[in-house]
């Protein structure tokens, strides 16, 4: 098992190196002159040229690439040419917000999606099955920005029960920063009121973000369970007198869910990119909105760093998923040998 984990980790390294190179190339082909943006509205061409030299933008592209790789390896992402602050610091401020939102959405998608899929499969072609199918088609088809606005209109404006935007109430503010995760920090600070406030703020963005994932997971669980139900061992188990619930929840689900776990890994990437729109609508101060601002202001340093960080997080999640899969189904680790 340990060897399996190590192998997965090693395989992630070349992928990340490729990402460093690819993002650098991409950042240099996007249009826009970062020096001009940085110099500001009233700047003269001479001022812009000076900044270009200051940030090394006038050096040969290969030299810039080497410098970039060296910096990334040492964890130094440079200063944002937009805000003048260290990029690493800005990302550290924003990453927890995105992770909190993404994990909340992933949690909802997984722990609602799997039972829904299971129930649907057990009621194959029954009314519950139809309902779940409708939900999953809708979940994939509905655009997240539309859903977000609708949720805001209903729950914030009409019913006035959930906040419209932000991570916490502006008057109370954030709890003292320990991890950057508000849900954790509020508990560390011994402030259950802040925890509940943060949870209420998290509700709408997390629901919006989770829906497509929830739909995917429900569908995969459903088809996985249906397939497993046809297997011989289920027939034997039934013949041996296992109860319906016990059979479904333990034997069928464990066999059916490996496919779903793979999906969870893939979903995580989709969730992070989906977070861009959701964060913008709910003013969630995460990496998504940071990346958008970086693009609009041609802040390539910030953009490179965001891509790298997301890449690393994605790689870590996928290794975790591989390991989880091996734990659920030991055959996976065996096959990989």
């Amino acid at each position, binding site marked *: 098992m340990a060897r399996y984990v190590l192998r997965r980790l090693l395989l992630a390294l070349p992928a990340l190196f490729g990402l460093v190179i690819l993002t650098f190339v991409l950042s240099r082909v996007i249009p826009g002159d970062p020096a001009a943006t940085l110099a500001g509205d009233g700047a003269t*061409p001479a001022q*812009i040229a000076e900044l270009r030299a200051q940030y090394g933008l006038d050096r040969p592209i290969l030299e810039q690439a080497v410098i970039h790789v060296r910096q990334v390896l040492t964890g130094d992402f440079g200063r944002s040419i937009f805000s*003048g602050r260290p990029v690493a610091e800005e990302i550290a401020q924003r990453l927890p917000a995105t992770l909190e939102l993404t994990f909340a959405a992933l949690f909802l998608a997984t722990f609602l999606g799997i039972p829904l899929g299971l129930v649907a499969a057990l009621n194959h072609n029954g009314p519950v099955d139809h309902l779940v199918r409708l939900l999953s088609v809708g979940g994939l088809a509905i655009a997240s920005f539309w859903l977000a606005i609708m949720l805001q209109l209903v729950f914030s*404006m009409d019913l006035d029960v959930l906040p*419209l935007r932000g991570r916490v109430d502006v008057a109370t503010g954030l709890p003292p920063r320990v991890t950057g995760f508000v849900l954790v920090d509020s508990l560390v600070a011994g402030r259950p009121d802040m925890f509940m406030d943060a949870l209420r703020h998290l509700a709408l963005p997390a629901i919006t973000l989770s829906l497509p994932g929830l739909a995917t997971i429900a569908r995969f669980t459903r088809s996985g369970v249906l397939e497993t139900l046809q297997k011989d061992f289920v027939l034997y188990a039934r013949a041996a007198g296992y109860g319906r619930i016990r059979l479904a929840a333990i034997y069928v689900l464990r066999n059916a869910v490996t496919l779903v776990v793979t999906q969870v890994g893939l979903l995580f990437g989709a969730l992070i990119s989906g977070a861009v729109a959701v964060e913008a609508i709910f003013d969630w101060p995460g990496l998504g909105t940071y990346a958008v*601002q970086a693009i609009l*202001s041609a802040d390539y340093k910030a953009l490179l760093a965001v891509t790298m960080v997301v890449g690393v997080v994605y790689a870590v999640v996928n290794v975790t998923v591989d390991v989880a899969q091996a734990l659920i189904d030991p055959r996976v680790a065996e096959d990989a040998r």
Partner: protein
Amino acid sequence: MGFRRLRAAVLAAAIATLPVAPTLAQQRPLVWGDTLPATLDPHAIFDVPSQFVLLNVYDGLYRYQGNPPQLVPWLAESHTTSADGLTWDFTLREGIRFHDGSAMTADDVVYSFRRLLAMNRAPAAAFTPVLRAENVTATGPRTVRFVLSSPYAPFLSAIPLVAIVNQRALAPHVANNDWGATWLAANSAGSGAYRVDPANYQTRVSMDLARFPDHFMGWGHNQRPIEQVRARPVLETSTRVLALLRGEIDATDSYLPTDQVERVDRNARTRVARDESMRVFIIRMNNRKPPFDNRDARLCFAHAFNYQGFNEVILRGLVVRNGGPNPNNLWGNPPDLTPYAFNLETARQHCDRARAAGAPIGREIEIHIQSELEQTTQAAQMFQADLRRIGINLRIVPNTWANITSATARAESTPDMWIHWVSTYFVDPENWVGQMYDSQFHGTWKASAWYTNAEVDTLLRRARASLDRAEREQLYQQATRQIFADSPDIWVYNTLNLRGLTRRVEGYQFSPVGSGGEIRLMSLAN
């Protein structure tokens, strides 16, 4: 019970199980929903959002207030100018304190201007042609002398751009000869009416301000000043309007979409402040690229834009027709100027003449819009439809501010046409007509029409060098008349600033500089 109420009741019951945050006994802070600048360093950037920091966290020697904006002595109690217009002496008020309690002296003023000039970013552009760092000196503990290298009338108008920073607060944070720029990007070292809480500052996400009780102007003008301000930019227009209606924020930005005005005004807890600003909407033509090197071609386009349709229908009459480069409400405009009107017949005649002179009217013309600014798209689409009626093919190219302004550095890369506004950076015709049509500014986005007229250059340069306001007025009028006749660009409207506010905000006073963001004048009703 209708379905809507039933649905509401069921959902409310379901969600009531989630506890609600306790209500606060204290007054809720002012929540300012306008955009925050990229950096808090007042010498590193100069754009519309940065004026909020400049006005509230810092002070300048002079300040613009009111509408039309008046230049009022601020940190300086007075100034004198030598007869040749080269030497300017400013005297500071007594008893000015920075946020750390230390006293402001002439040395801080000298330091601030030297820092500005050394960093050489956007706010320095107004000074670098005429001011060298060594020519800013302290002549006494409260007196500062500026010696210009040539007479420059807009000097005083540009003085409010420069924040005076506390050099003692900055000194420990200077690294690699950076003038403390990395530190000041997320901290403050000012004397303004509010101070920044650096612990809660996050670039473009949040800035918390607390009132500075020892501000040198005192607080006698305001019985109930606002103690706490939370600046929380709202990214999406739809969320911004909803957040205002719900009272989550107290103020939107000052570009409330015209289709939202009625909705905000109708709500019992919100209103819209409408103020004529100094911000001109312009469709640029690249006068170096055919067919726009031909005057008739330019006049053809100028007559093909449906000004009334755009201003009155699309923007619901919430703007004012502005027929020249300067805003209507500024001095220096010829009183007899009749703006070009939408007339496709006249347009066609000009186009025919241009075509006869060999101008390639038939080629596809590109107009670049700023994708994130809805109005630029609307204007381009309307223009496209009308031009098609006279046989001109306009192609709309989505683009961004950053990208277009870097393209305007050279005439060849400047788009055929593009759309933008020119806001109030300083209140002087130099900010508009001066920097837009004097050929010495070619290569900057403001002069991206690449217009060249030797006579206009002379007039604008004389106006820039003269200290006689009446003479300057004359010169600007003359130059504007000539520019108008050459029709280098299409001037559309002057902005009405539309800011949504909750009704608990009192004392909001608009000025085109800073767009009404001066918090020290405001209070909150209970």
